């Protein structure tokens, strides 16, 4: 049910782990639903210089985490906030319909991490944060 691209990313995921001296962490999902994503960011002058993920979930959850972290490295936080799940799905050349929620979770994890960065630096909240799900 997964395409070749998803399998490649899942076989060899990038940016695994946790940045200890991070500038923002976002964690979304819950174990009961079978998906948790945690993304930690290193940010310098509002530019994401590093991103790592830890994920409890299916192959699609791991693949989308890997892709989403890879995409935001080098982006400004403003740009990263605009990252949509559709972009992640596009990079993976499609996901099975029942796995689309994994890409949504990846988008939410990035947003939650940036939100956390904003909170820590005492700035106003990001747009649409009311819908973010923290665990």
């Amino acid at each position, binding site marked *: *049910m*997964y395409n070749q691209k998803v*399998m490649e990313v*899942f*076989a060899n*995921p990038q940016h*695994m782990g*946790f940045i200890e001296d991070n500038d923002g962490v976002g*964690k979304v999902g819950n*174990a*009961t*639903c*079978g*998906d*948790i*994503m*945690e993304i930690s960011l290193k940010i310098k002058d509002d530019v994401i210089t590093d991103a790592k993920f*830890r*994920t*409890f*979930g*299916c*192959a*699609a*959850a*791991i693949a989308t985490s890997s892709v989403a972290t890879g995409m935001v490295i080098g982006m400004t936080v403003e740009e990263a906030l605009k990252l949509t799940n559709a972009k992640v799905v596009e990079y993976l050349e499609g996901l*099975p319909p*029942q*796995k689309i929620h994994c890409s949504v979770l990846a988008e939410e994890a990035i947003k939650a991490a940036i939100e956390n960065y904003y909170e820590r630096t005492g700035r106003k909240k990001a747009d649409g944060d009311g819908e973010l799900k923290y*665990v």
Partner: protein
Amino acid sequence: MRIYLDNSATTYTDPEVFEAMKPYFFETYGNGSSQHFFGREALAAIDRAREQVAAAIGCKPSEVYFTSGGTESDNWAIKGAAHAFAKKGRHIITTRVEHPAVIKTCEALEREGFEVTYLDVDGEGFVTPEAVEAAIRPDTILISVMTANNEIGTIEPIREIGAVAKAHKVLFHTDAVQAVGNVDIDVVRDNIDMLSMSAHKFYGPKGAGVLYKRNGVKIERFMDGGEQERNMRASTLNTPGIVGLGKAIELAVAGMERNNAHIRGLRDYFVKQVAARIPHIRFNGAGDFSKRLPGNANFSFEYIEGESILMRLDLAGIAVSSGSACSSGSLEPSYVLLSIGVPIELAHGSIRFSFGKSNTKEETDYTVDQLCKTVEFLRELSPLFKNVKGEEKYV
């Protein structure tokens, strides 16, 4: 590497079975209902298969009805009995751990106004004859309890349940799809009125099954049309499939002791190795291996999710099955695991390994090694595992 540890999903067709089937594609291809010699030759082969099935489960050939597989047999037995006995009563007893072919059939009958009692099972998946007896009401018309569970391999006490059913004069059906070829079955000794089986679970072809129905038990016919199967199940008989089923069940029963010893040996070794080498796991199903399918091992791995385990093993050339949400595309984890009390987070991280007669010790060793690597890799990746190394368990 191509290692198949999903023998509960399906088995390969035994070459000897395939050889037996071949003439019925090219030479003896007549319709078993035809009067001419082509038809008579096909019918003779079908009758031989009927005798092979009867010998394997201890019934009469006239009690064997060929179907398309386990799902059809379950549907037919349960709906056929319910509709035939609706005037007598509308209550059915089954369990929470049945295959969807039984559960969904019962749910369909509930929508028609039948009442169904779904019996709870214990922590190893067993239902007790006492619980079955306690659930019987004056309007109970059918008890359906599986012989062995497809996910956790638990073998139910069907002989005792059959005795309870007989004592109360209630029909007893068992879904023996996982059990035939692995478990000794005698429908007379075990007081079974109806039994479902499927050829592709015991090295026969896909698309061939049997419903055994004791003579004298009146159920409704399943498909309308021709007069095949004593006017009970219309449709041209699948001669090659039926011949294959007959050959397969004959081989399965003749080789059961030898095959089971081999399969059980591999499974026991596997379970021991996994338990010794991987921490934070839960072994699901019967701990008494004499009450468990010989090839079945089911583990939950804490802090990681089942589908990702399955797919990492897939990358390593190992085929297994997961009881977790994502693999089936639904968001619910296995209801069987939840029914035996596996916490929902853990149920998400469950894998079924089912060994078959051609698996080897080398394959088992390789699987254990790859499983260790996979679990370690995914735990390193899991935000939950970090917490167990720290203070909390689940967040």
